């Protein structure tokens, strides 16, 4: 028996040793190091660095450009948040009886599959002020008066980029919702239909509660995604003009790799992680209490 146990142990150890080492070296140590560095003034290349206590945390809170960047993240968050209802709607339509549903399913997920950098450049062209396709669309609809400098007007650039983000990521949520909807047992819905439930009641009392886990995941993904927006603004506007389309992650990366302030950047990284958890908990509480209240009625 003990020989067998020894063999088991040997197998477990030899199999796990490499993956666990990789994980520790490239994930766990860097994550722990982020916390340590957030209390130093390390510049990214010196051998020495001083422990500066909470200085980075204080200067982070005082940094106006960073707050502006965070506000930009909030725009992504809100727009995507409201899109969730639309995404859910599409998921319900596509799981129901519908001609060409398969084709639509393929299309809805397409933007998520294609290269983000290519997408970003394609939209740079789409919104370009010279010969831009979007301005031409507006022209064709006799809406010329709406034409703006889509990517260089500080007032609107961030909304334009949020739209690109919605274009790119909404299909992902639709697919997740569809997968969840399909896993709801058919007989429950059938029984409800026999009892005379209409589509809206079916949606509200059966489908939405049935996919609550997925709704949770999508809400979490929305927080994580909108706090980490990076490649769309990085490629299209580099955060400009000024900081008009900068985001928290973009600012953090710039602080580290452009301004060589790794200490402060680590502080921001820690802040992102804390914000993700914090907003998630609050949002969860609110959403769940809303749904539970509805059910009690």
């Amino acid at each position, binding site marked *: 028996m003990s020989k067998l146990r020894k063999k088991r142990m040997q197998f477990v150890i030899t199999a796990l040793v490499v993956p666990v080492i990789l994980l520790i070296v490239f994930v*766990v140590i860097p*994550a722990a190091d982020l916390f340590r560095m957030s209390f130093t003034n390390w510049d990214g290349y010196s051998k020495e660095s001083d422990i500066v206590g909470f200085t980075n945390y204080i200067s982070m809170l005082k940094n106006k450009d960073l707050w502006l960047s965070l506000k930009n993240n909030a725009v992504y968050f809100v727009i995507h948040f409201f899109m969730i209802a639309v995404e859910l709607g599409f998921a319900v*339509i596509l799981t129901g009886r519908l001609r060409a549903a398969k084709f639509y399913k393929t299309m809805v997920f397409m933007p998520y599959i294609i*290269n983000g950098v290519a997408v970003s450049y394609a939209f740079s*062209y789409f919104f370009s002020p010279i010969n831009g396709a979007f301005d031409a669309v507006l022209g064709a609809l006799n809406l010329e008066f709406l034409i703006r400098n889509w990517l260089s007007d500080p007032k609107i650039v961030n909304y334009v980029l949020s739209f690109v983000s919605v274009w790119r990521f909404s299909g992902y949520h639709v697919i997740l919702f569809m997968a*969840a909807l399909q896993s709801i047992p058919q007989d429950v819905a059938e029984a409800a239909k026999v009892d005379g439930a209409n589509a809206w009641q079916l949606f509200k009392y059966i489908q939405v509660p049935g996919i609550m886990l997925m709704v949770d995941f999508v809400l979490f993904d929305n927080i994580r995604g909108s706090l980490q927006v990076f490649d769309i603004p990085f490629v299209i506007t580099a955060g400009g003009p000024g900081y008009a389309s900068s985001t928290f992650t973009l600012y953090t990366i710039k602080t580290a790799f452009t301004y060589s302030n790794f200490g402060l950047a680590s502080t921001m990284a820690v802040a992102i992680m804390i914000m993700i958890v914090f907003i998630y908990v609050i949002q969860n509480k609110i959403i769940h209490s809303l749904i539970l209240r509805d059910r009690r009625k």
Partner: protein
Amino acid sequence: MVKRISTQIVKQILCASMVVIVMAPIILTLFAALKTKADMVTTSPLLLPEWGRVTFDNFKDVLSDKYLLIGFKNTGIILMVSIFFNVMFGTITAFIIERFEFRGKKLVVSLFFIGMLIPTFVTEIARFQVIQGLGLYNTLGAPIVIYVASDLMQLYIYRQFISGLSVSLDEAALIDGCSYFGLFVKIIFPLLAPATATVCIIKAINIINDMYIPYLYMPKNKLRTLTTFLMDYANAQLGSWQTLAAGIIIIMIPTIVIYVFFQRYILAGVAAGAVKE
């Protein structure tokens, strides 16, 4: 009956507009890629030029760039090596976590769980020194090691799949004198083939499309990947939308082809990868 037909029509209109919104930016980019420099100015961006004036020169320009080929090669190497190790470590780790009890298991499981939760972009600030310290900066090793160590989506897919396999299989094999290693290689691994297919496809798309890690860790020209090639090309082609558009289309093609062929697995895999316990 009338009501049913009208809802069908509304649904079709909604879905059709969705398709237009999805396709418009891509098709308009394709139009630009097929125009000459002169036609870019004279024709509407919403239209192709007259049939006789459609040109493929922009595509030829991009394809003749030697860095495109280098980009294809590097992306290919990174892809194959990372996916190989992802599958190897993913399957065995999931197998052990699902089927074995051992001291420290909780710790190992929670380490992997943390690995999934930590935001990737910002950890690079700390990971950068580890990569540099190991001499992996500006080598293909940097992206490979990061994709293998830190992108752990495959664990969920494999764990879900293994939990559906009957334990009596393991027992029968062990009683027949199979070693644990033999059991894994001869019995479990082949049974995981469908999950492996899904993992390979999804990883391939993520890796081909990733911009950040190659951009950060491989600034060397010879280490261009498809995405960093496009970024470089865009900087060089400033203002020449028709050639850049051709570059955009060419870079989009590999993942679109994968998607069109394997969409069933991709859609299933994305859903499986997202739902965590």
